[in-house]
């Protein structure tokens, strides 16, 4: 019996040696949202460059910020949304890179070059852009599916079958929009109304989670869920929820823009820059959108040959001009604190 144990110890030691050998190779530590990184593109990057990519995942901008703030320094690329890019730049959490000098930078749509959150284009390259709203499984649903009312004050047919994102950054802006209050609100009176609305919604909610909605929609565990446009489309096409409708509420919809950035102290900065350039290649940029089903921030004519034509016609992405799109901005510390407190109360 002890020889068995010895053998096992031997195997483990061998595994340890083997893996320390692989540590010597070129690496890139990528920290991205769940289900947001196309596997085959990573494999292609690995074969082209010989750089091994380690992927870890997170569920929200807040989690990313918390992880970086608590000293997780090993990441080379992370993928925050625009309002968190601003925070990270002001907190000195990002490395500069020569982005304008990268060979594929020319592929970026002129509208998204030197964007407001990175006016000198020293920190970010664009990854994906989209909107935040909610989806309804129309199978058996009775309602117009055109208002945030159906999400915050749902009718009986879907009560108890609602999933809501777990992060204030994604839910409170929609609530403010529904109540007709301004975004980045610092007014406690308005925030009290938001809190009351969310608490009133809670009895109808089954799950607060930003990751399990695809599985829960697919199994029928939930019928209405917080969603992003591309993820909703992916659920409809890939996961067989054919009646899923991504709602463009008449009160408005939240727009977002995710970028690749290099956090301070990244151990493989040169590899991170290679990766950034790789992701701005027209064909690769198109594959990202083909996988994620979000709109590409690359120039439409450059990617035209590679992009799935279905994507341009998808109902999720094409928003009627009557629906106001509010681009989420970086709020003051005061309103962030208010948001967090409201949210903590709601989640209790």
């Amino acid at each position: 019996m002890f020889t068995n144990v010895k053998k096992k110890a031997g195997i483990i030691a061998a595994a340890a040696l083997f893996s320390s050998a692989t540590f010597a190779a070129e690496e890139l530590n990528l920290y991205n949202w769940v289900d947001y990184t196309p596997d085959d593109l990573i494999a292609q990057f690995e074969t082209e460059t010989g750089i091994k990519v380690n992927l870890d995942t997170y569920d929200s901008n807040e989690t990313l910020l918390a992880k970086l703030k608590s000293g997780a320094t090993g990441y080379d690329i992370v993928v925050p949304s625009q309002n968190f890019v601003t925070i990270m730049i002001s907190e000195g959490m990002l490395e500069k890179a020569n982005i304008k000098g990268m060979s594929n930078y020319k592929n970026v749509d002129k509208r998204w070059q030197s964007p407001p959150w990175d006016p000198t284009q020293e920190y970010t390259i664009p990854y994906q852009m989209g909107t935040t709203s909610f989806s309804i499984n129309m199978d058996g649903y009775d309602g117009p599916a055109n208002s945030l009312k159906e999400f915050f004050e749902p009718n009986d047919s879907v009560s108890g079958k609602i999933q809501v994102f777990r992060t204030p950054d994604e839910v409170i802006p929609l609530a403010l929009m529904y109540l007709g209050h301004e975004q980045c609100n610092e007014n406690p009176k308005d925030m009290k109304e938001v809190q009351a609305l969310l608490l009133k919604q809670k009895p109808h909610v089954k799950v607060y989670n930003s990751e399990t909605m695809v599985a829960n929609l697919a199994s029928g565990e939930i019928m209405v869920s917080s969603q992003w446009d591309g993820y909703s489309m992916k659920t409809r096409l890939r996961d067989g929820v054919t009646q899923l409708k991504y709602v463009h509420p008449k009160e408005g919809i939240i727009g977002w823009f995710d970028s690749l950035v290099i956090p301070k102290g990244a151990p493989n900065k040169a590899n991170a820059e290679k990766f950034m350039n790789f992701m701005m290649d027209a064909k690769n940029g198109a594959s990202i959108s083909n996988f994620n089903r979000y709109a590409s921030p690359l120039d439409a004519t450059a990617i035209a040959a590679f992009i799935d034509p279905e994507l341009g016609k998808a109902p999720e992405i094409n928003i009627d001009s009557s629906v106001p799109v509010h681009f989420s901005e970086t709020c003051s510390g005061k309103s962030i604190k208010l948001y967090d407190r409201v949210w903590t109360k709601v989640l209790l």
Partner: protein
Amino acid sequence: MASNIGRSSSNTNKGRIPWLKWWACIFFVYLYGPIAVLIAFSFNDNRIAQVWTEFSTKWYVKAFSNEAIQNAIINSLIVAAVATVCATLFATMAALILSKGMFKGQTLCLGIISLPLLVPEIATAVATLSFFAAINFPLGLTSIIVAHIVFCIPFAFMPIRARLAGMDETLQEAGRDLYANDIKVLWHIVLPQLKPGIFAGGILAFIISIDDFIISLMVAGAGATTLPLYIYGMIRLGVSPEINAVSTVLFLVSLTLVATYWFISKKNEGSNYVH
């Protein structure tokens, strides 16, 4: 775990209540039913995890050809191996001292060593995280290993101490009479006798480390995803037979180790293991 309990077979056949047998049967079904379902559906061909179609091992092939899972397994093995070796070494040294006579502060030392058993995992996790942040200790595989060594020490310590308590001291005395110095007595007499205890302790430490989730979750950094963290990531995306396959393997690893531990400790007559 309690393996030493005296075997008074006089208890048999006394105080018997007929429905107890059925109760116990139902209990074991409850205990193993979910695991059986988990294992059964890992061999299901269907992508929808809970609808049986036909037997297939494709999820195992798929899971273990997945590079991310391979990395996670390697990470888990490195963490568990290093943590086990360090924790077992430290625990053995401490047990050798603490088993010898009484001294002032002994209870305090015992208390400190068993502290990781008492503190809830979540408290350990967030405390360790804040501490690492405060001293600028980079989060990564090393931070996980350090955290694991801490909570593995008491698990390695218990069986070793129990073994020492039941050990026959006459051999050591004989050794000393033959003018062997202390280190020779330790090396040639004490350690060989202690071996089963050390193995048992090492196995416990290894199991605890390889299964740990919440502490690893909080102190993990870049490229340090261990197998339980990876499984958690998969569960967050919903039920899938691939999770069943990976879980089955992890279950079998734990099962083998527990069984090994059990048989080793059964040889440790006269010692007392609780847990």
